[in-house]
């Protein structure tokens, strides 16, 4: 009888354990293929989470790895409008940061995606400027998109993606 009880107990632990497990690939959960037409229009920031890369690397407690800073800047004034050309391809954008920081350093120009079927990066540039910036696509829902802005150390000797990332922001945008 005791054996049966202990087996039942183990089974219950396993069931609860699996029920509480996070999805195996959370970054893919709910992800959709981005079509340029999906992005057309104005997107407004509803939330910005800042992540400390050093705390993440060090495996520090979750509460010191990230922080909601939406109201600190204030980021809820930050909007981007994506326009398409006559062929439905990415053309111009307008970025309105309000009083929040604009890490792209551009407010208008052209935008592009790295892959028309499965976009992972949105690149912003201006014909009149050498500046360019990018958001990394983190997650897409029906009317919501989460984009990551990485902040890397200015090491002139390394290509952009190999420069040390010291923090990143995740912007949650909702379509207007």
């Amino acid at each position: 009888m005791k054996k049966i009880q202990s087996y039942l107990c183990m089974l219950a632990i396993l069931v609860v354990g699996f029920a509480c497990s996070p999805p195996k690939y959370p970054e893919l959960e709910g992800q959709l293929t981005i079509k340029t037409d999906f992005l057309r229009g104005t997107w407004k920031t509803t939330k910005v989470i800042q992540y400390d890369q050093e705390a993440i690397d060090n495996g520090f407690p979750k509460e010191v790895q990230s922080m909601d800073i939406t109201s600190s800047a204030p980021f809820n004034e930050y909007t981007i409008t994506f326009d398409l050309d006559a062929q439905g391809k990415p053309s111009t954008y307008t970025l309105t940061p309000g009083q929040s920081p604009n890490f792209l350093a551009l407010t208008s120009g052209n935008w592009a995606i790295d892959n028309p079927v499965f976009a992972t990066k949105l690149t912003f540039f201006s014909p009149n400027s050498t500046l360019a910036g990018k958001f990394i696509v983190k997650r897409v829902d029906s009317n919501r998109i989460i984009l990551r802005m990485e902040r890397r150390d200015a090491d002139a000797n390394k290509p952009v993606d190999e420069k040390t990332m010291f923090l990143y922001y995740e912007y949650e945008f909702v379509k207007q």
Partner: protein
Amino acid sequence: MKKILYIFVCIMFVMNVNAQIVVNITAPSNNQFIASTPSFSFTQSVKLIVDISGIPALVAEEAAGGNIYIWGFIQGCCGAPTNGDWTNSNEANRMTKESTNKWSITLSSVAAFVGASYDKAKQAAVGAGRSETETRFGFLVKGKSGAGSPEKKSGDIEIAFTGPIFVATEYRTFPANYSQEDVATVFYDQNLEDNATMKTQTEVYMYMEADLVGGGSIIPFTSAQVATTPSLKMTDLGGKKYRFNFIPAKFFNLTGTQRISKIRITMRSKTDANINGGEKSSTLFRAQ
């Protein structure tokens, strides 16, 4: 009774996390990994006491009135920025004479001493054919100049360290590293404050100065202005914890190409600048 025991265990754990570790080592003449050292973490303070009696060149150096220096590194990753030159060690790495042939140095942490992330230390371990948790701190001890025949140095010594442990302190910034364009948050925990008068303040204010690259500094609000500037008041989070958000470029009203190298921060009383928690500092990153 169980509760008391639990609290006691928790207190002992916290004390252990904050305790300084002392590592005694007899310097070898050849390169060695010394496994039998006390366990300490990447972010923990560690005092190294090194016996140089087995290295005749260093014994002679000491006998001649010379000092002994540490030369630190993580093999396959990085050297301590304060090492200096092989023939002219940096004074920051000068050890303290404990007794004849015994020299010590206290590192605030391996992380701070080598200036590398734990991620890099793990990569170095893997690069050396170990598992990523088998991270090692390397060093040797030497004369001011290591040159000579034989060289005035010990063999390379490696000792193990564990992953970092987060230790709450009275002051921290979030994130730990940021640039002048980023949002930064200063957290202040009055419960951990050493200054008895500062510990009792019901309002906490910020006083900040920025050192600029190329020299000069910016003080947007003088010490006398702090009391009359409500925006410098830290937000009370309850439980004697406070927070202050700022974007350095905006807070210091940077113009043109001005760039901040370091921010010096003092948490203080609203009206009396002499009541404060001591100056802290943040070295800023330069974002691409």
